[in-house]
């Protein structure tokens, strides 16, 4: 097969009108035991120069566990000339059974100038039929949002950590959701980033005998890396939404309070520290501290509970990784709606 993307080249340049024929040819010419697999259509959109190559590399890794039809788009909206260039390629990996190679197709587009308005029609023409359609939008959303596009999208993936104005972006997303009759599932990689820490904290309260501690929480401390304040705020929003805390008072950007249903205050302190996006979370009651902290080895979490200052026996749990491939893989493994995320956002929208 001549156009595999192992070296992250964009593959075979093709005319846009001949993509289907060229893809067919690609498979006819393939040698050896290869299987084309696809569970979803995954469109990746970026306006960053050079993103085609970078995203091709990401797709090579993502398709290892998530077979898909990848449609990678780089848009240069400021270009003077109107032009569309296209490439086709395949990401092949040895499957988990035997030596058969499992391949995902990739179609890459470089859109220049006002041709970016053609985005929906270009995407629609190249979807693998009957499969869900996911869009990974890597930039900030701009008005006008393409209403026709949203009507087709099943899951919209983005990373709110990169947003400058969370509230404005959320408004755009909500209008996109309305265009799609609330059918789109909003998938925030900034939320996915919290999965393992949420999981690690949640397990402290699995036994009914620990439930009473949830009502006694009076302090929450979250250490976040520079640039990841929104991640920390989302975490606080999650606890607030799940435990029915309401926003009480913001004393400073990184110090605020919630109030629980019994009227008790919960002081929240966000501390900027270098390291992992969220390096430590401490949930504190008068008697006990529940601690989730990154272990020294990086991709593990140490979880422990005890009285502040006393000797503890931490357990290790997976921490996940903060790279786009890991976050995307985690997100693609999930599925289902993200109601909990939306509740969390609503609790802390004004703090973001």
């Amino acid at each position: 097969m001549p156009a595999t993307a192992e070296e992250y080249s964009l593959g075979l340049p093709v005319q846009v009108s001949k993509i289907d024929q060229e893809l067919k040819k690609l498979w006819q010419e393939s040698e050896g035991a290869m299987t084309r697999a696809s569970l979803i259509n995954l469109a990746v959109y970026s306006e960053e120069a050079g993103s085609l190559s970078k995203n091709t590399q990401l797709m090579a890794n993502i398709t290892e566990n998530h077979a898909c039809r990848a449609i990678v788009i780089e848009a240069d909206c400021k270009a003077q000339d109107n032009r569309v260039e296209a490439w086709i390629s395949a990401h092949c990996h040895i499957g988990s059974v035997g030596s058969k190679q499992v391949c995902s197709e990739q179609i890459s587009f470089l859109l220049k100038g006002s041709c970016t308005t053609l985005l929906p029609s270009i995407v629609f023409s190249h979807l693998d039929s009957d499969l869900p359609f996911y869009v990974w939008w890597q930039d900030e959303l701009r008005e006008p949002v393409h209403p026709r596009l949203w009507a087709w999208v099943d899951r919209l993936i983005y990373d709110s950590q990169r947003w400058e104005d969370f509230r404005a972006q959320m408004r755009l997303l909500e209008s996109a959701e309305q265009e799609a009759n609330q059918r789109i599932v909003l998938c925030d990689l900034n939320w996915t980033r919290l999965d393992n820490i949420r999981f690690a904290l949640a397990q402290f309260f699995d036994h009914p005998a620990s439930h009473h501690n949830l009502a006694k929480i009076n302090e929450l401390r979250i250490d976040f890396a520079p640039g990841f304040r929104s991640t920390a705020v989302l975490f606080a929003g999650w606890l607030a939404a799940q435990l029915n805390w309401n926003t009480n008072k913001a004393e400073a950007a990184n110090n605020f309070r919630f109030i629980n249903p019994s009227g008790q205050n919960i002081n929240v302190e966000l501390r900027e520290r270098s390291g992992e996006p969220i390096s430590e979370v401490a949930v504190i009651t008068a008697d006990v501290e529940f601690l989730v902290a990154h272990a020294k080895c990086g991709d593990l979490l140490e979880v422990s509970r005890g009285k502040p200052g006393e000797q503890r026996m931490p357990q290790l749990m997976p921490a996940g990784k903060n790279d786009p491939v890991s976050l995307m893989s985690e997100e693609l493994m999930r599925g289902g709606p993200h109601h909990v995320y939306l509740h969390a956002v609503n609790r802390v929208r004004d703090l973001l």
Partner: protein
Amino acid sequence: MNRATDQPEPNPLREGLSARAVPQPCTIVIFGATGDLTHRKLVPALYNLAADGDLPPAVVIVGFARRPKTDDEFRRDLEEATRKFSRQSVRDEIWKNFAQSIFYHQSEFGEESGYKALAERLDDIDKNHGTRGNRLFYFAVSPDQFEPILKNLKDAGLNQTCEGSWARVIVEKPFGTDLDTARELNRVIRNSFSEEQTYRIDHFLGKETAQNILVLRFANAIFSPLWNTHYVDQVQITAAETLGVENRAGYYEHAGALRDMVQNHLLQLLCLVAMEPPTDLSADSIRDEKVKVVRSLRHWSRSEIAANVVRAQYSKGAINGEPVLGYRQEKNVNPDSQTDTFVALRLFIDNWRWADVPIYMRVGKRLPKSATDISIHFKKAPPVLFNKDLHDLNVLVIRIQPDEGISLRIHAKVPGSSFRIEPVKMDFHYGTSFGKASPEAYERLLLDAMSGDATLFARRDEVEEAWAFIDPIEDAWHAKKDAPELFFYAAGSWGPEAADDLLARNGRAWRRL
């Protein structure tokens, strides 16, 4: 699959994080801790759960066995085994953390004082490790050890717990050797643990593809109207393996293929294929429907057994070009052994849905390839238009192992000016579509037992009904007079001709694997 009735109030922080029931902190006491099962399956499965973050931090493993050993020696043995048998490579820091919660308790199974000491030790563990009085006793021992262990657990008060805690027992097969012994075993278990506390493990049910049978049937509307006697011509279930008896002759000589595979694994698979839709996904709703299938199996008279069941034994032959011994020449096997290493059966489920649909099952050792699958063969389309000369049926195949997946054979027109029609296969492979490796069956089943979900475990009545079906066959085979013939097949073949004849007399043939 379900939330058991003793599942605690939901943890609000779990919402949206996991769709499965949450495993609870507990101490897992493994009887037979120095044995093969513990080393090859149980501890590697627990390690994988810990490495994936699926095990609650407060889970402690206590190995109970006769040999003298320290905690450290036991941990070293288990580490070596886990490095060898785990599906993912062992990370030092995770193992170190995991191993802190492994302990060894030396005692004879029949030694009363050993259980008193165990009870004290478990109380200490509860205090120091937060296991909250929950105990999971895993019987990785031969059934003859069950009674003394159960009696001593009861005498030491370990079958009961304080309010809010639980004690459960996981029992490995064989669940008896016939109906009487199964009933006796169940009686012995029931003396110490209630049915709700008892988890009979059948690792076939922990396999991803076995669980997917229910999803295939009840999440896809297209199959439901076809899944009955009006559209299904026959069902075939095959469990083939290339291996011979290996080092299990001691057990296998007394068991044979019928008891070893059909009574449990194959009948369980049949139940999943043939059961009615359950009212919900609770363990008992599913098991209620499964047991109805076994209860509806047609029981044969002696003469009918000879006509519908074929037993055979492998003789010398070759597997993948390598010569192999015949069964009677294997180590520790009686040179005149009458043990069945192959069984083929024609069954009928006498209920509304499956009336007159033959179910063909075959299981055997030293067959040409290792494969377990289920195939649903649909009836022919009316013999008009294209179907006058078509002989192949539409077949839906559920591959349980290896290369797990589902395929559907349909007819298609060969391109060209003539109407030549050939069968083609639409094929779904788990490994191709889902890159992530499935967890091992034991991982899923251990997690379910810790969560109180008994859906994938066999219930007492399922086991007893299965024996009630198997016993007349075994009795006929062992009758002094007119016992059905034991056939022989060359290792590396698909069994004796008599197995082919079982289908050929009705114009059918085994599916080519």
